[in-house]
């Protein structure tokens, strides 16, 4: 601890330079803190998908339906604890730009399978009573300023016509990363009103009695429907979400690439700064060694300086990013979720320190190797 003052004094030497370097870290880590939630949103909840759920879709394509009659057969497959289903509605609220996902779901079984959705008891009861009812997620309600009791008109794009729903309740997630940008309404209402596709559902979701059974149960389901007019493809929800996200382009990879480039640039910029800092201080480093500082001690001082810069900038950037994400989805609902988990903050801080150490490594080693006699002659 007694050397901290020395490290601080060196940082204070060129205030502008130190501020700029700390600022680079802050900007990079802020970017990191915003990219992580965006990637999370576009990975379609792959990180949060339940390990105990399987998604059953039409083998030909996700957009092809499956017969309603499959429900009972799915319930008969050993290892299946519960079955629910949903259909993509694809309606437009006022304007195309107001996109949000709408699903027709089975009112009786949906929340058994999706236990991470939280709906107040009396709101759920109202939804079960109200044929035209719907439930919306917290962030979606916030986006459009909806309150319980509002009537929500949607223009059908797939199922044409003017549709109206009663907002019976708002759901939250048990965890902050649950997607609350969706609207859920009753499948029986869709079934009654639609002109085509009666007797079919978009996909099934199967809850497993035991998550370890995923592979066996998935195979059993697909085998059972093999050679039928509606063959199935059964995947874990994670795999399903991933393939769903792929339709949006590989946002995850893009985000990771941007992040990697930013960190690499940061490494070069900081490495250069530290190299300059060491070079212009050659004489002083030699004096420290003369006075009795060991080679390793001098190495530590330079590394400490670099890591301290990284730590300060990283903490600042991540703190700002956390504040920013607490303010909610900046696109006001376009993102499925917008949440920066503490684990990612920890990861980001660790990365910052690592970049700081890596950037300081070469200059620190040259400071360590510095020959006192030659350096003193150059003073």
């Amino acid at each position, binding site marked *: 601890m007694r050397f901290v003052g020395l490290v601080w004094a060196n940082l204070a030497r060129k205030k502008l330079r130190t501020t700029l370097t700390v600022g680079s870290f802050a900007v990079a880590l802020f970017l990191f803190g915003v990219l992580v939630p965006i990637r999370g949103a576009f990975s379609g909840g792959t990180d949060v998908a339940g390990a105990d759920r399987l998604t059953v879709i039409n083998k030909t394509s996700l957009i092809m339906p499956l017969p309603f009659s499959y429900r009972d057969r799915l319930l008969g497959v050993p290892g299946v604890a519960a079955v629910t289903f949903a259909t993509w509605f694809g309606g437009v609220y006022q304007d195309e730009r107001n996109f949000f996902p709408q699903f027709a779901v089975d009112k009786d079984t949906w929340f058994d399978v999706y236990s991470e959705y939280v709906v107040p008891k009396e709101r759920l009861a109202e939804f079960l009573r109200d044929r035209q009812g719907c439930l919306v997620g917290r962030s979606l309600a916030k986006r459009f300023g909806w309150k319980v009791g509002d009537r929500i008109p949607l223009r059908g794009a797939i199922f044409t016509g003017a549709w109206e729903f009663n907002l019976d309740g708002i759901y939250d997630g048990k965890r902050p990363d649950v997607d609350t940008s969706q609207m859920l309404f009753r499948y029986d209402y869709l079934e009654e009103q639609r002109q085509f596709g009666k007797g079919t559902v978009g996909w099934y979701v199967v809850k497993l009695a035991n998550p370890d059974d995923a592979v066996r149960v998935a195979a059993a389901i697909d085998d059972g429907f093999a050679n039928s007019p509606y063959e199935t493809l059964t995947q874990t929800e994670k795999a399903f979400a991933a393939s769903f996200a792929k339709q949006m382009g590989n946002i995850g990879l893009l985000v990771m690439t941007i992040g990697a480039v930013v960190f690499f640039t940061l490494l070069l910029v900081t490495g250069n700064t530290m190299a300059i800092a060491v070079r212009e201080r050659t004489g002083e480093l030699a004096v420290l060694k003369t006075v*009795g500082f060991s080679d390793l001690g001098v190495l530590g001082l330079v590394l400490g300086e670099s890591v301290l810069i990284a730590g300060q900038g990283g903490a600042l950037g991540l703190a700002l990013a956390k504040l920013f994400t607490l303010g909610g989805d900046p696109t006001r609902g376009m993102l499925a979720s917008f949440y920066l988990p503490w684990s990612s903050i920890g990861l980001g801080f660790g990365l910052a320190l690592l970049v700081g150490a890596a950037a300081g490594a070469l200059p620190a080693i040259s400071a360590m190797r510095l020959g006192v006699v030659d350096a003193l002659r150059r003073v």
Partner: protein
Amino acid sequence: MVRVDGEGNGGGLIRVRHLDKKYRRGSEEIDVLQGLNLDVEQGEFVAFMGPSGSGKTTLLNLLGGLDLPTSGSITVAGDEITHMSAAKLTAWRARHVGFVFQMYNLIPVLTAFANVELPLLLTRLSKAQRRRHVEVALGVVGLLDRMDHYPRQLSGGQEQRVAIARAIVADATFLLADEPTGDLDRKSADEIMELLGRLVREHGKTILMVTHDPRAAERAGVVLHLDKGALVEGSAAAGIPA
């Protein structure tokens, strides 16, 4: 008694025998020190003189364990330092040697106090103990009232006094000063020499100093000239180019 004939009985503080230092510049070899002998006892004040390039700085660097000789031995207070590992030598230096340079070599971003405290950071002393030592050292050089000043806020003479305080704060066994007045005006130089003289007389310090300045050399008890790689006894006035 200071001796340069290699006949000292070994009871002294510093004992140098057959010291050789060669530098290699390309294919050419330069013999800077050749068979140099020196015996210095505790509490002596020795001045080294000699023309530029005669090897004075080289000798101080060797005595201070900053550099290694080509051959020969240096023994300080019983420790033979020419065979120590680099790490051991660094630790030895921290305990035994105080350096004073021509250009003061203070750390510009540290206050006078923090500059003097530097060597103590390597000891086990507590913060309060360090403060006491620093205050004593700054008191000896008469700069207690300037301890919060940065080097750029001090005159050259004051900077050199801070450097001397840094050299004595950890109670070094001996001080090495390389042209400590070389960059100072007459008045400041006299003050520095007065201070070094006082350290020897009143505090029993041992000082080995390189100087070009006959007036500075007069303060020392012994003046030695570097000639053809070895030391010869002389006077302050002798051997100085007119």
